[in-house]
């Protein structure tokens, strides 16, 4: 009786063999390319079939026919749509997303300015969700049916169902206007603006790198409220999922085995059950993070946070299709990237899919 051959071939014995790594990397690259082509094709077609005249959006409705024609040809709108698409892909490959009508700047520059703000907000919110939500979910599952469980469930339900803009306004009213514990809307106080050179665009990081701790604290003070509000949402979801995953794992037979071995309950929970929960949680956390990166327009609006969600929304209202297209592609790339990352982590945590 040796190791069973049923275990997907490559798993037996010596771990991952080099050729299979290569194959899986190539597989990932191929699927990535296909996803990317699909993503750009769909967004491109949508932007072209929208009843918006891109020429008119640029030249304005008082331009002469001559000017109109010139721009029309310049944009290549006389060519068939697949040629236009290929041209767009070519520009994209050079990192050119076109020029935004609204800001009169290259879309790529706009995105590099707005996206880090969202990245900062979403990352802190997700971290909050993980570091509070996961222990809360585990705690609730371990005390199932008793008061800690009820508290976590009610809080999670509230966090999940309360309208985020309302929560944001109330939080601003209490913690900014009345108590003055935190800074108000925006990313920085006006007099700190533009002091630190935006290397990464993530203020906390830039300020820390430049050794400007006043600015760091100010940025943190601005960030904490929107991140908490957004984090509540992530937290509620993560806590609920953790609780139900944990309950499921705690009823498994291997938990009884661990208890029979005489292992302390804390280790039964974290060493045995949680490792299995983690496998399922990775997907949930990845999806939560991706959806927050997409830009949470409501939070960004309430807190005047200059993020990608606001940028895309404004561009859409102004028929600024290059900006919308560029923003969508960035968000799409984020989604794909995070999915890939969680896929990789998944393989790391779960020996069954290696």
């Amino acid at each position, binding site marked *: *009786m*040796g*190791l*069973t051959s049923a*275990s997907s071939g490559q*798993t*037996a*014995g010596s771990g991952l063999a080099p050729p299979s790594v290569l194959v899986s990397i190539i597989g990932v690259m191929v699927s990535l390319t296909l996803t990317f082509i699909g993503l750009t094709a769909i967004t491109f077609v949508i932007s072209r079939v929208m009843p918006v005249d891109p020429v008119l959006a640029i030249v304005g409705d008082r331009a002469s026919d001559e000017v109109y024609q010139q721009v029309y040809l310049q944009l290549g709108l006389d060519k068939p749509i697949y040629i236009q698409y290929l041209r767009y892909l070519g520009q994209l490959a050079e990192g050119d997303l076109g020029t935004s009508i609204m800001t009169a700047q290259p879309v790529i520059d706009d995105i590099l300015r707005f996206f880090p703000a969202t990245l900062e907000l979403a990352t802190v919110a997700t971290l909050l969700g993980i570091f509070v939500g996961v222990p809360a979910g585990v705690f609730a599952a371990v005390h199932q049916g008793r008061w800690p469980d009820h508290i976590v469930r009610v809080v999670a339900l509230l966090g999940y169902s309360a309208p985020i803009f309302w929560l944001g306004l109330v939080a601003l009213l209490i913690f900014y206007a009345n108590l003055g514990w935190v800074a108000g809307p925006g990313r920085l106080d006006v007099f700190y603006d533009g002091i630190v050179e935006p290397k990464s665009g993530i203020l906390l990081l830039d300020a820390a790198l430049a050794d400007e701790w006043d600015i760091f604290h100010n940025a943190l003070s601005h960030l904490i409220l929107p991140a908490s509000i957004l984090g509540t949402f992530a937290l509620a979801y993560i806590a609920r999922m953790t609780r139900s995953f944990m309950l499921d794992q705690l009823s*498994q*037979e*291997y938990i*009884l*085995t*661990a*208890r*029979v*071995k*005489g*292992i*302390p*309950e804390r280790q039964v929970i974290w*060493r*045995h059950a949680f*490792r*299995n929960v983690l*496998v399922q949680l990775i997907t949930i956390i990845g999806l939560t993070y991706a959806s927050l990166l997409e830009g949470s327009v409501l939070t960004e609006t309430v807190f005047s946070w200059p993020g990608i969600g606001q940028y895309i929304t404004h561009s859409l209202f102004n028929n600024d299709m290059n900006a919308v297209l560029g923003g969508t592609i960035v968000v799409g790339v984020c989604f794909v990237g995070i999915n890939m990352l969680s896929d990789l982590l998944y393989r790391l*945590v*779960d*020996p*069954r899919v290696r």
Partner: protein
Amino acid sequence: MTDAPLLKVEDLHVSYNTPTGVVEAVRGVSFELGREKLGIVGESGSGKSQTGRAILGLVAPGGQRRARRLEFDGTDLLSADERTMRRIRGDCISMIMQDPKYSLNPVMSIGAQIEEAFLVHRETIRQEARERTLEMLRAVKIREAERVYKAYPHEVSGGMGQRIMIAMMMIPEPDIIIADEPTSALDVTVQLQVLAVLDDMISERGMGLIFISHDLNLVASFCDRILVMYGGQVVEQCLAAELDQARHPYTRGLLNCLPSLDHGQDELPVLKRDPAWLSAVKVSS
């Protein structure tokens, strides 16, 4: 009984509160166990598994355990706190579960799981635990112990998984092993191999064994003594060699249902249950 009993169980009850009322899974089971092999036989729902779990204090949530006496080697298990129970579990009394597919942690390597059972009861360095683990894997007749040490549960077969389970539960050298249907999830051919391994290790180390099974023949050939359970009670207690002289109608009925190679039978009888058995007096030889 060979020497002073290790485990004394007197009037053990396990009950569950359900929405439809209290269900009595075990109703007044008493027995003593020395360094011997005791078989507990019964159909599903007869309370044999619940008896095993109750001894370890691991009754499922919602369950309650009561007993007049529950003693291991002078320690009262009824009043023991969680700390004492943890010390006893694994180190003194251990349990082998039915199906290795579910009873091994899927995301921990086999070596880590076995090692952990040892480390939790012994203050020792990892290196020694690792050597003990490899030794144990070889003792349960696993070739390529080094490779299995690094493997994960999904990479081994059922029979191998069950031998790994045996290694894991034997490594702290407990005095009593409870084997809860240890071969029911295995192929018939593999069953015998696993039983042989279990038998070797029990006899070598002079442990007490509680062998829980629904298979009357298997228990009779493997154990010294047999308890027959029905409806949460022990209805018959006898030596394995004297099973053919069993007197309780349930045991007799079961024996009659077994086909025999020696005497041809046109039709196997079906066991007729008598409601009176549920309140019947115990037959003991």
